[in-house]
């Protein structure tokens, strides 16, 4: 029996996956657990392992194909099957079954189980007609219309080549040749109508008027992660009325403490960055202002607000082809060292594409730090269904009036975005004030 390879369901909400590339080719031998292909879901890239050992056959979808989860995308033929196919004529008859050589060959070729066949020859020997009879009886069950139809499509070599080159399914076309034979012109027709359709879609999506003069760049439809990012962000921006609150935070104490603690944190396997400090302070502030540690979701017709007890802190990480937000679970329970190690680990794995779907979902608040760029402050769009997000700008030395004179202080601006449907300005301000105090007087983090 061949083992089907299916498009796996990595996450609860995943409905489809896009094949990035096959790492094994059709006809190649694979061992159970070996990586067969890479798949992109709306959140992350995943590797799919071989569910069994054998030979990869019947690869049904190529790169870029988006396939619903649990769809069979290929088969792995068992080693015995392959061996039987390779050494067809010599396959031994089952003990006690008398079979003519022709019948045996026929059975081997067609996969008929000889123990289930009654022989009509001398001394009950199974002969050719018996195998033919068994085959006929099996025919209705083994009919796999999809496959058979594909194989029986009448098409010229030129039509097949064009279809192959452009990824067109011949079975879906109507042939204009003799006996419905599909010819090059039929494929070309399908191709040009597809192109027209695609172009229209693209133009609608990016608002290009057909026939824009001088427009020669070729557009590309958004796929996978990027498509998800696009739709979620516009949904968030359109649905959630955002309010933005900015404050400056004095980093003098934090900087001093960092010098004291950096080595200890490093010894524990992390790096005491500003992000770690902010994460620690945000977790503590959210404990005291839990209204911002929440989700607002549409359930049917109703908007439902859910407050979380624990802080599941999403930390945005820029990756090659987009943005990932790995989530630090129960961030409020982690000390600085543990938090540093956890954030370091998640960011590193985000950049190498090794996060699991559970590690990038379920956040209750998001932290986005662009402090490594010359960005003094910015506003972030809410990461639905969360109701608040903190945007962190670059820390820089600024003049500070201490009442008698200006002195240089390292300052940082943070901007809180909140969903105004559930977060009033005063609540957001109180949270921000708490956060500022915790970072300026970090001893309070011990309270």
């Amino acid at each position, binding site marked *: 029996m061949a083992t089907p390879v299916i498009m796996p369901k990595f996450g609860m909400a995943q409905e489809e996956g896009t094949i990035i590339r096959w790492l094994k080719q059709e006809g190649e031998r694979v061992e159970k657990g070996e990586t067969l292909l890479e798949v992109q879901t709306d959140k992350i890239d995943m590797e799919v392992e071989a569910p069994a050992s054998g030979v990869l056959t019947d690869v049904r979808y190529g790169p870029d194909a988006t396939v619903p989860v649990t769809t069979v995308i290929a088969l792995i033929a068992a080693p015995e099957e392959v061996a039987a196919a390779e050494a067809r004529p010599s396959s031994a008859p089952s003990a006690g079954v008398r079979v003519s050589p022709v019948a045996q060959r026929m059975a081997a070729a067609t996969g008929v189980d000889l123990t289930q066949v009654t022989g009509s020859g001398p001394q009950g020997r199974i002969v050719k007609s018996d195998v033919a009879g068994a085959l006929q009886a099996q025919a209705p069950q083994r009919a796999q219309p999809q496959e058979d139809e594909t194989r029986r499509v009448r098409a010229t070599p030129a039509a097949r080549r064009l279809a192959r080159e452009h990824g067109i399914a011949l079975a879906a076309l109507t042939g204009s040749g003799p006996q419905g034979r599909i*010819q090059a012109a039929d494929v070309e027709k399908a191709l040009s109508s597809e192109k027209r359709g695609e172009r229209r879609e693209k133009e609608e999506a990016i608002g290009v008027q057909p026939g824009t003069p001088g427009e020669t760049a070729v557009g590309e439809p958004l796929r996978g992660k990027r498509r998800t990012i696009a739709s979620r962000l516009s949904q968030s921006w359109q649905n959630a009325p955002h309010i933005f609150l900015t404050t400056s935070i004095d980093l003098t104490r934090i900087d001093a403490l960092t010098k004291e603690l950096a080595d200890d944190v490093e010894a524990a396997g992390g790096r005491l960055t500003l992000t770690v400090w902010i994460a620690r302070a945000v977790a503590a502030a959210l404990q005291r202002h839990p209204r911002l540690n929440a989700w607002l979701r549409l359930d049917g017709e109703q908007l439902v607000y859910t407050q979380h007890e624990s802080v599941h802190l999403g930390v945005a990480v820029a990756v090659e082809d987009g943005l990932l937000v790995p989530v630090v679970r129960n961030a409020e329970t982690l000390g600085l060292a543990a938090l540093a190690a956890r954030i370091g680990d998640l960011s590193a794995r985000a950049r190498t594409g090794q996060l699991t779907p559970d590690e990038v979902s379920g956040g209750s608040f998001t932290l986005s730090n662009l402090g490594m760029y010359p960005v003094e402050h910015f506003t972030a769009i809410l990461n639905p269904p969360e109701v608040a997000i903190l945007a962190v700008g670059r820390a820089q030395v600024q003049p500070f009036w201490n009442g008698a004179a200006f002195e240089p202080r390292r300052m940082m601006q943070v901007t809180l975005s909140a969903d105004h449907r559930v977060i009033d300005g005063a609540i957001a301000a109180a949270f921000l004030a708490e956060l500022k105090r915790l970072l300026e007087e970090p001893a309070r983090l011990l309270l």
Partner: protein
Amino acid sequence: MSRELTYAEAVREAIDLAMARDERVFLVGEDVGVYGGAFGVTDGLYQKYGPERVRDTPISEAVIAGVATGAALTGMRPIAEIQFMDFITLSMEQLVLQAAKLRFMLGGKVQVPFVLRTPAGAGTGAAAQHSESLENWFVHVPGLKVVMPSTPADAKGLLLASIEDPNPVIFVEHKLLYRTKGAVPEGYYTIPLSQTEVKRPGRDLTIVATSLMVVRALEAAERLAKEGVEVEVVDPRTLKPLDAEPIIRSVCKTGRVLIVHEACKTGGFGGELAAVIAESEAFDYLDAPIRRLAGLDIPVPYNRELERRMVPQVEDIVDAARRLVKEAR
């Protein structure tokens, strides 16, 4: 300078030029001398070069082929003539077992540089024993080259190239082509063997034709052009060794191919051509099955109407081409 010559005159001019240029070249065959050849091709050469170099033979094709082989082995450049291709059957042993193989069997120490000219084809009402097209028999024999020109200019240039070639060349002329006229360059020139020529460019359908069928295919193409069908006519000229590349290129371009030859379809050269095309990259460009239009699998009938029906005519080519193009649109 070019002027119009008949195919027969072009062949004669080539022989004349070769004999004048190279003393080793001589003619041997039945009635090639005093009579001037059954179709008048060698007319006047006996008078010009004398009995030593234009030798009439007894009625024995085995002798003609044997003399040519032996003389070639000893350093001469014979041009032998078999009066009708049908009678080449009598010289098969000399051609197939001796001439074709001696160079190989003697480790390249000898060469067999002769040309065996012979008129083939039906259309003269000469019945089954004087109308054969047996070219593919020789295509099947390693060691022989097979040339089959379709125009006077090709006939002259290819015959001179065949005479220069160090191998035995079967040079197949067509009785009905002898009186066809065409521009022929003056003086000595050769057309290299194994050089397929596109005789007419087109985009809708490739017709690969040989000998007289090239002429008929071109006429068919002319008629089809009036219907808006652009036919590309390709002439291999040398059947062996075949220059397949231009044929493959043409089929890649048009996606449809009709092969036309006069010899019987079964076992004919068209089967070889079809296989060469199907095995090549042209396969992926085929938009219709490869079709062959060839002689019927019967002996050539004496009855003129039946004889006509047996061999592809212009209207048959037009019809087959039209069906093939329609089928692939």
